[in-house]
């Protein structure tokens, strides 16, 4: 071995050097937050109620984005955790008469967490890592089974679900539909968003990125892949549980669809449409799909599902990274875990 060769002599051109110098993501987050903060001031009451529902669904979408977008675990049964928490708090309110926000929301979080731990333990904690197909079909089957169980169980209200759930309370104050519930949902959405942002930008987030990109490779580094998966899966179940319990109290009733395949598929579409692997993408996907559905169903009552379906198909076909890829470069979507980028090395995207 003789003298060393300058690295430049062996380097290939680097067309992929995308800019991180001017970050668009925080600006987008601020814009979305500002719009959300002022929305009830300009919307009519019935639209504020609708917007509250959308915020809660954004929370649900974040839970799915965490497992699929960040950890690469295809959970086709995310509604199990959403719906079971919804049913759980509805039963607590109906049978125990407890509606305090300090009890029902933690209970919903725990129910979602416990169901995810149970299902995740079965599907993910084998001696060797489970395949994507096994986990997708396992979660899908779980969702279908729980849906059927709810439909056939009289105690859970069968096909009709549990109607007329009492309002959630804080002391003597009742959270009815409207601006207060809207801001409550927004506060939870912001808190969960920040928690997810903190996690996904930490060294733990880097481990999740490794899991998503090549789980076999990282197992050879010494990562306990199954444990990582079970942890993030359970955490996402807890977030879905929070969303489900808020949803139950906001809507005032729960029904089997909340647990089933339709709801599970819907959350997949929210995240794929907006852009998996970016938290803001999950939020934008949910808002856009729900807003377009609302508008289309008012204006094209007979054919709106077809129009919406074609729209979703077009985005997924031509923008597989979701709407967010129209604005954010791949580098910014993936992010940087270790150290801030060198400004000098950035050229145009």
């Amino acid at each position, binding site marked *: *071995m003789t003298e*060393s060769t300058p690295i430049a002599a062996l380097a290939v051109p680097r067309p992929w050097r995308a800019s991180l110098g001017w970050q668009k993501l925080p600006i987008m987050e601020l814009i979305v937050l500002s719009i959300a903060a002022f929305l009830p001031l300009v919307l009519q009451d019935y639209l504020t109620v609708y917007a509250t529902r959308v915020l809660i669904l954004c929370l649900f979408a974040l839970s799915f984005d965490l497992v699929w977008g960040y950890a690469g675990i295809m959970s086709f049964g995310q509604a199990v955790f959403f719906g079971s928490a919804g049913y759980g708090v509805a039963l607590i309110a109906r049978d125990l008469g407890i509606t305090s926000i300090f009890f029902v929301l933690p209970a919903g979080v725990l129910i979602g967490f416990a169901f995810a731990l149970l299902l995740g333990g079965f599907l993910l904690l084998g001696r060797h890592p489970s395949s994507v197909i096994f986990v997708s079909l396992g979660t899908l089957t779980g969702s279908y089974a729980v849906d059927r169980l709810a439909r056939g169980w009289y105690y859970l209200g069968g096909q009709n679900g549990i109607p007329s759930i009492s309002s959630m309370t804080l002391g003597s104050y009742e959270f009815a539909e409207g601006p207060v519930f809207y801001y409550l949902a927004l506060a939870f959405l912001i808190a969960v968003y920040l928690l997810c942002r903190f996690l996904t930008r930490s060294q733990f987030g880097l481990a999740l990125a490794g899991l998503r*990109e090549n789980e076999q490779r990282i197992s050879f*580094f010494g990562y306990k892949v199954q444990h990582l998966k079970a942890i993030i899966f359970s955490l996402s179940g807890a977030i879905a549980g929070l969303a489900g319990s808020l949803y139950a109290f906001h809507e005032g009733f729960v029904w089997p669809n909340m647990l089933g395949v339709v709801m599970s598929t819907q959350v997949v579409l929210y995240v794929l449409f907006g852009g998996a692997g970016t938290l803001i993408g999950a939020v934008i996907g949910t808002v856009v799909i729900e807003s377009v559905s609302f508008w289309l169903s008012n204006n094209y009552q007979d054919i709106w599902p077809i129009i919406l379906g074609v729209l979703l198909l077009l985005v997924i076909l031509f923008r597989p990274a979701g709407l967010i890829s129209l604005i954010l470069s791949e580098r910014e979507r*993936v992010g940087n875990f270790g150290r801030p980028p060198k400004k000098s090395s950035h050229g145009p995207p």
Partner: protein
Amino acid sequence: MVLLEARGLVKIFGKLTALNAADLTVAENEFHGLIGPNGSGKSTLMKCVAGAEIPTHGSVFFAGRDITPATPAERARAGMSLKFQITSVLPALTLYDNVLLALQAQTSLSSLVFSRTRGVLHDRVMAMLEQFRLADHADDPAAALSHGQQQWLEIAMALAPEPKLLLLDEPTGGMSLEERRVTGELLQPIKKQCSLVIVEHDLDFIRDICDRLTVLDQGSVLDCGSVREIQSSAKVQEVYLRRA
């Protein structure tokens, strides 16, 4: 002192016997080459040692411990590190994050969540990138590297956790002559750090860096010895080297 000992490894895929009672012994700080024609069982032996394949029969001892049933993660935690035959860097991540990912593998969950070791590991990440002449590209995504540079990055990732044994499966595969020469230069300093088992088709390359060689043919060990012994082995010349 013996670091790795594989005894009587047999690996059967359906009707194919890929390994037939193969033995492999590697001492501490030894560079050991596995050579043989295509299909001789080199990569299968490597995979059985690394835990990517479980042998049908036989045992693998590492640092005196029987690790035959251990998972790849358990072997990595015991001090074994593997570079795959097919480059498997994480293309969307920067080079810096690729190396950090390898380095932080044995960090506790709470430290990962609160990013407690990010500062501590920074110097080691940069040192590995410097060692493999990739520091200038630290902020670039791994996908932007040439094939040869990706191979170097993967070796850097495998070496970053300071393993006792490094397993390299065809590290110069697909490289130009110049890149192979540089790879040889980059591997020389490793000799002070750990033992190495290397599968390679380039005999000149393997002669230059290895202390001992094991020659495989049709899943069995044909011969084993120092480079000089193997070069003068009548059996090897008859069955392998002349064919090559």
